[in-house]
């Protein structure tokens, strides 16, 4: 069986500085995988390499067995990978409903067509409404997305990310800047919408990580120093030394 994501000796340098220094990682289909690590470890860079935002310096990224080298973000998305961002990234001037509907268009085969009217497709409207229901934003349907509260915008972004039906979902710090109750809500939402999908997420909140992830990778200075089930990682002395010890004390 091919894995959902396969990283082989992935490297990225910005000028003289090597940020990602040879990452090997294999994430099987259907797994919820968390990438953790101290600030500046290169987690977001790794995310951006996988999703095609930056080109890699060396190494291979494979999605469902397909090499992603040289592919633009929109091409990678069409192959079944969808992501959210650390900083909320939605369409602020469009309504909540339209945000979701736009994220459905490509996967539903509308592409660049100018002979269909989107409002005439009941299919599209129903699918968008179903997603709004899932992320509990039905009541906000007609509001411009920019006026939603922070937690609602994060929920909307998750909705946009999953709407296209991608089988690999990547979330970059989905609970950053949220209160406890908001975090609990988002964790439940993530659990619900990533059912039967592969989830890769970067997260700082250890409660979220240990609650959601099947496996965890620890990234330190551009290298993965440990990968495994939450208990194994927690018990790993190198991890404790590099990162978890300090983080656990703080919590």
């Amino acid at each position, binding site marked *: 069986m091919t894995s959902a994501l396969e990283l082989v000796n992935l490297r990225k340098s910005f000028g003289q500085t090597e940020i990602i220094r040879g990452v090997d990682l294999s994430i099987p289909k259907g797994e919820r995988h968390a990438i953790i690590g101290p600030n500046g470890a290169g987690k977001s860079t790794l995310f951006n390499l996988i999703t095609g935002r930056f080109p890699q310096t060396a190494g291979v990224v494979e999605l469902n067995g397909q090499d992603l080298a040289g592919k633009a*973000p929109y091409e990678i998305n069409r192959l079944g990978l969808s992501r959210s961002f650390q900083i909320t990234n939605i369409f602020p*001037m469009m309504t909540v409903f339209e945000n979701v509907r736009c994220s459905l268009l490509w996967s539903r085969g509308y592409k660049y067509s100018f002979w269909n009217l989107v409002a005439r497709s009941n299919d599209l409207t129903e699918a968008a409404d179903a997603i709004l229901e899932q992320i509990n934003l039905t009541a906000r349907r007609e509001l411009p997305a920019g006026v939603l509260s922070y937690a609602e915008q994060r929920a909307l972004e998750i909705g946009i990310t999953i709407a296209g039906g991608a089988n690999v979902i990547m979330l970059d710090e989905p609970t950053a800047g949220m209160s406890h109750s908001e975090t609990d809500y988002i964790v439940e939402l993530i659990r619900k919408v990533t059912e039967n999908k592969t989830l890769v997420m970067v997260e700082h909140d250890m409660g979220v990580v240990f609650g959601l992830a099947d496996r965890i990778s620890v990234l330190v200075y551009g290298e993965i120093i440990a990968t495994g089930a939450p208990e194994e990682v927690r018990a790993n002395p190198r991890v404790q030394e590099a990162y978890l010890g300090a983080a656990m004390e703080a919590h």
Partner: protein
Amino acid sequence: MSNASTNSRILFGQPVSVLLPWIIAAIILLILPVFLGSRSQLTILSQMGITIVFALAYNMLLGQGGMLSFGHAVYMGLGSFMCLHVMNATWFGALPLPLLPLIGGFFGLIFAFIIGSFSTRKAGTVFAMISLGIGELFAALVLIVTVFFGGEEGISGYRDEGLPFFGIEFISNLEVYYLISIWMFVAVVLMYLFSRTPVGRMANAVRDNPERAEFLGYSARWVRFASFTVSGFFCGVAGGLSAILFEIATETDLNVTASGAILLITFLGGVGFFWGPIIGAIVFTLLATVLGLQTHLWELYLGVVFVGVVMFFPAGLSGIIMSHVPALKTGKLGTLVMPYITCVLPGVIGGLGIAALVEMSFHVRSGAADEHEMTLFWIDFSTHNVLPWVVPLVIAVVGVGLAVRNAPAFKAAWDNASTLPEAA
């Protein structure tokens, strides 16, 4: 939109309430010549129609797609020149005139396709600068390639040399008015429908957040390119209509000033609503023609209005109109009538007083040395008397003073009308 479904009557597969604005617009276009039937009035109306098509096509970029173009008159102008060359071709006698704008549209599309293929790679400043460069380039070409553009005289032709269309030869202004109105109506409907298609919706998404759109499977560049090409088509149609109406195309049709004017028109009307540029086109054409006949200074007033709108009402005239919707919904629109009379009306009258002083000063400075007589607001007077200076000065001071004094009351009434009362 969501409330429309409650209306049970259906026409062409749409609820009547959705179609109503279009039906009303069609009827207005049909009966306007009854009230405004003189040659010059029909010409102004026709010019308005052309500007509406151009402004809406421009707003496909500015408002819908988030692309600021400083050279969009190029596509309308080229469409116009192409159509005039067709009008001068020997086979024009075999072409029904109503099809001519299609040819303009075709060439607008071709040029937009070529130029858009590289200019839409990036939005923002890069796109704006390329569009400015293209605008300057073509303005220069007009004076260089005289074989095609006819130099400073431009290219002229005769619309009535085309194949008669069901016996109509389009000699009278009324026939031309109806031809342009029908084309405008069809073009506006098509542009509206385009904004409702997948690529039209994604144009909004790319405008708001190109990076996010890319991670949804859409190439931002292709979406921009598609909007740009379609916009070029409708600009070309406007150019074809202009060729029919004026029977001439010159450098002024595609230079950077013309591009600036359409930006101004679109912004004046407001980019936030589909119909905003229509308001801008109507107001601008009226200022340029009706006011332009009255005073040399009309562009000064246009500039003041434009700066005022941009500074205080960035959503444009359509934004001002739509800001009354909350008051309409609360049912308190009526409470705004008195504040309008006590604040806005004096302000406008005071503004007219200032304009009168400006006109008189201009007359004294620029008129012939011994000519003291002038006419303003249908009143004849001499600028060398004191009274004609005192009257507008008093009007200006009192009018503006009243407006300023009553502004807080106006704002209070406005806020009160726009918010729902506390839950009863």
